[in-house]
């Protein structure tokens, strides 16, 4: 482990962190603008050109708001929960390859923070750790609605994690590797969306449920639970939950791109540009969904996860296994 490797890793970590921290305000701006236009409004436009600085202004506002902690709250866990949410989202991005090898100062630098041979398990593991942030936030507030929201979300995330994992297993069966860089490397001639279309659909649906986005945003259903797990959170702690939600959208999109859409591969443009284009399209899709679909009822959500998605993903896995065994 030489000094150059340490510096290289540190720089890459900083780049990924900065990318997420700068990207999230942009996504929030895009969401407000796009939903605004879809609902025949104009969206933010006052702060900066096209209202681009609106989210920055909102962030600064949240910084200076009073930080309320409920009197009966468990103070340590109340602090820990939003931090856990953010950390798990950031850590998951460390294994996603966002470009081909580049040569900097005569060194071959692969464009991902770490190429671990169990990358997919790592992403699944960190997202499952993300459940803690929400459950603990709901519990530590020591208040009715947050607790209900937290319990809902943990049940929802555990249920959908299963189908999500199994849908990824069918791709792993085809590639024989758990490394995201390895999976991207095998998509030179064909994106895996073609042979594994059903796995992709299942993965995407589960991804939306995992990130608690509409139409699966049951944990914070405002008409029945005030604001769900983050009801008691204010100021920067609320901002951290907000950040974590959008960072998690990035994680799901980045994994979907790497596994099903050839990662950074694409003609003419440089690899990083392709990665960013695909990422933006995915994030737009998330926003589009939110503007289009009403929220599901809780029992519908659980029934859909266990009775539709899980059997479908198992069936897809069985078919893939048979095909792989026959063609070998």
């Amino acid at each position, binding site marked *: *482990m030489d000094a150059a490797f340490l510096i290289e890793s540190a720089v890459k970590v900083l780049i990924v962190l900065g990318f997420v921290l700068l990207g999230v305000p942009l996504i929030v701006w895009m969401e407000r603008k796009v939903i605004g236009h879809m609902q025949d409004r104009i969206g933010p436009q006052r702060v900066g050109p096209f209202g681009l600085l609106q989210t920055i202004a909102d962030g600064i506002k949240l910084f200076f708001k009073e930080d309320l902690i409920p009197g009966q709250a*468990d103070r340590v*866990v109340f602090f820990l929960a939003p931090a856990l949410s953010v950390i798990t989202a950031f850590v998951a991005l460390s294994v996603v390859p966002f470009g081909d090898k580049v040569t900097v100062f005569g060194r071959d630098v692969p464009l991902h923070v770490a190429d*671990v*041979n*169990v990358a997919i*398990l*790592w992403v*699944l*593991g*960190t997202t*499952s*750790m993300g*459940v*803690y942030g929400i*459950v*603990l936030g709901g*519990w530590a507030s020591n208040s009715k609605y947050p*607790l209900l929201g*937290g*319990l809902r979300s*943990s*049940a929802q995330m*555990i249920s959908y*994690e299963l189908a999500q994992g199994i849908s990824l297993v069918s791709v792993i069966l085809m590639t*024989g590797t*758990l490394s995201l860089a390895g999976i991207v490397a095998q998509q030179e001639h064909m994106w895996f969306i073609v042979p594994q279309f059903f796995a992709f659909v299942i993965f995407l649906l589960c991804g939306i449920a995992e990130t608690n986005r509409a139409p699966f945003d049951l944990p914070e259903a405002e008409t029945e639970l005030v604001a769900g797990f983050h009801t008691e959170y204010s100021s920067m702690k609320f901002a951290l939950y907000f950040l974590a939600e959008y960072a998690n959208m990035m994680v799901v999109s980045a994994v979907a791109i790497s596994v099903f859409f050839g990662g950074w591969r694409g003609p003419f443009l440089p690899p990083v540009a392709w990665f960013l284009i695909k990422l933006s399209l995915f994030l737009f899709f998330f926003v589009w969904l939110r503007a289009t679909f009403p929220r599901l009822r809780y029992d519908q959500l659980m029934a859909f996860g266990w009775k539709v998605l899980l059997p479908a993903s198992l069936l897809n896995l069985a078919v893939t296994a048979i095909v792989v065994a026959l063609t070998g």
Partner: protein
Amino acid sequence: MGEAILFTLFSLSAVAFALGMVFRRNAVHCALHLVGVLLSLSGMFVLLHAQFIAAIQILVYAGAIMVLFLFVVMLLNVKGETPLLTPGSAKGFGFFFAFIAFVELLWIVVSQGGTEGEPAPVPALPPNFGSPAEIGKILYTTWLFPFEVTSILLMIAVVGAVVLAKRKFA
């Protein structure tokens, strides 16, 4: 060098979290400390070149099983534990089991590690040691029987849970 630093870090945090788990009064805090222990152990597994086990440790134990633990603890809203034994007998049992554990450890140290001279050389790891493919191969050849027995055991547990849950409402 780096490995030694990381090992110290992970082992210290594992011990600290384990102590916290035992001595904390609040059941949710105990569960969280146990998660800390599991995460530290997964760091140790990476140091032992067992990345697959490390990832599974996070995914299954810290990410799934402990979440369910927490779920139950939160739903039951355990205020304080009701002691199963009187303080005196608990102390007696504690000393008894601690003594047995001490004798066992002493036995291991005396029977194996107590010899003088050089420690046995560390055998070189085979290529791809700890990779998912290698673990899969071993699991489905050498250890196939225990593996299948375990899966049947888990199946029995699942069926048993369903039967018990159904009986209550019938």
